[in-house]
């Protein structure tokens, strides 16, 4: 995966969580499946997307929350 594609995936994931903030809770696996479909034409694997998600979490663009199951959400200051 090129840096450019990775950036696109990361922006897409963060954008999706922002767009649905307060309306829908995304499980990490939902996001991975969604991105797999979205970037199918670019040949991205599940592991590529998991890698991109890992970087998002490490950079704290998103954080994990828990309500019966784990989900991705925006950090509290956002």
């Amino acid at each position, binding site marked *: 995966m090129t840096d450019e594609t990775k950036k696109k995936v990361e922006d897409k994931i963060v954008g999706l969580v922002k767009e649905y903030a307060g309306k829908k809770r995304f499980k990490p*696996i939902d996001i*991975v499946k969604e991105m797999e479909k979205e970037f199918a034409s670019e040949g991205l694997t599940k592991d590529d997307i998991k890698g991109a*998600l*890992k970087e998002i*979490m490490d950079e704290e663009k998103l954080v*994990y*929350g*828990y309500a019966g*199951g*784990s989900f991705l959400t925006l950090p509290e200051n956002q």
Partner: protein
Amino acid sequence: MGKKHQTPLLDELKKGKWISFVKEIERAAEKSERTEDLLGQVEESYRDKVNHWKHGGMAGVKGYGAGMVGRFSEFPEKYPGIKECHSMRIIPSAGFFYNSDFLRKLADISEKHAGGLLNFHGATGNIQILGMSQAEAEDAFQAIAELGFDLGGSGSDLRTPSCCAGQARCEFANYDTMKICYNLTEEYQDELHRPAFNYKFKLKFSGCANDCVASAARSDLAFIGTWKDKIKINQDEVKNYTKKFNVQKYVLDKCPTKCMWFEGENLVIDDENCVKCMHCINEMPKALRAGDEKGASILIGAKAPLVTGPRMGMMLVPFYDINEDAKNDYEWLKGLISNMWEFWDEYGVSRERIGELIGRVGLNTFLEGVGLEPVPEMVEHPRSNPFIKFTEDED
């Protein structure tokens, strides 16, 4: 110093000669105001017969999606000390071995950053520091990391693998439980710390069917030590036992498959029908020993209640040559686990454990998905018919 909160119901739990968790919390409360507040709220819970915690939310340390279990008081103004009362889970050493230096330092961390209460070990197998606030979490985590320990699993992830003391202390262990537990814990760091599953997934390792970590009842994937060949019999020791207690009544009559009997003074075992339950070996350890071809049975799908109630594990792999696979860094097993997680990712729904998924899609579909051949020993319950249906042209 007088008590901050009156706790007449909890005081009842200090009476009698048994160990009291109330006494221990009170001891911790002598040094911690937040733990005093904990006593007040627990008293209300006993009075109202409901717990007053709000569960979940946002609690954790940087970069980790697991390891902290969020708990918030329903009465933050009345009990400000436990406005946040999170539990921090720490991966135990395999087999639960610690030295006193570690325990002292951990107790210091607990007193400095939480309410001075530790849980050894929680139902999950983790060490838990109780009563932590989010503001203290990062510092506590760094202090724990300096001791060489790490946070455990929580949420929809691989939960902290756990094992019995195995060959370190137990003569019955059929494989090195601590070695595989440690190996898989290291292998699956990402899965432990980043919740990416549909729901939780637990691995537990017991060295024999005594199942000291209750793996058959409480883990999605249970490894129970067993053997393939015959039980070794020392007839002289059998004779000694017959002089000490009623072997017929307490051993033979309690054998679940009635596969043993006396011929004269000699004990005979029909090993073909032995289910390796360990009862006879437990009763007469000097006379009976497990065979030499040791390995493990793998059970899948056990869980405690939530979505569809409790269930025991189902036999998935009757005999896994774990000792041989250990020489290849558990390559076969890791491949199987990877296939299972792929299948569960693909077909599982939110908050569905893998055993529930198998119940929904059928065992045949699952086996095909993970690349295992069906065998008659894949039974759902002991001595019940397998629910694989063989066609006429199959053996």
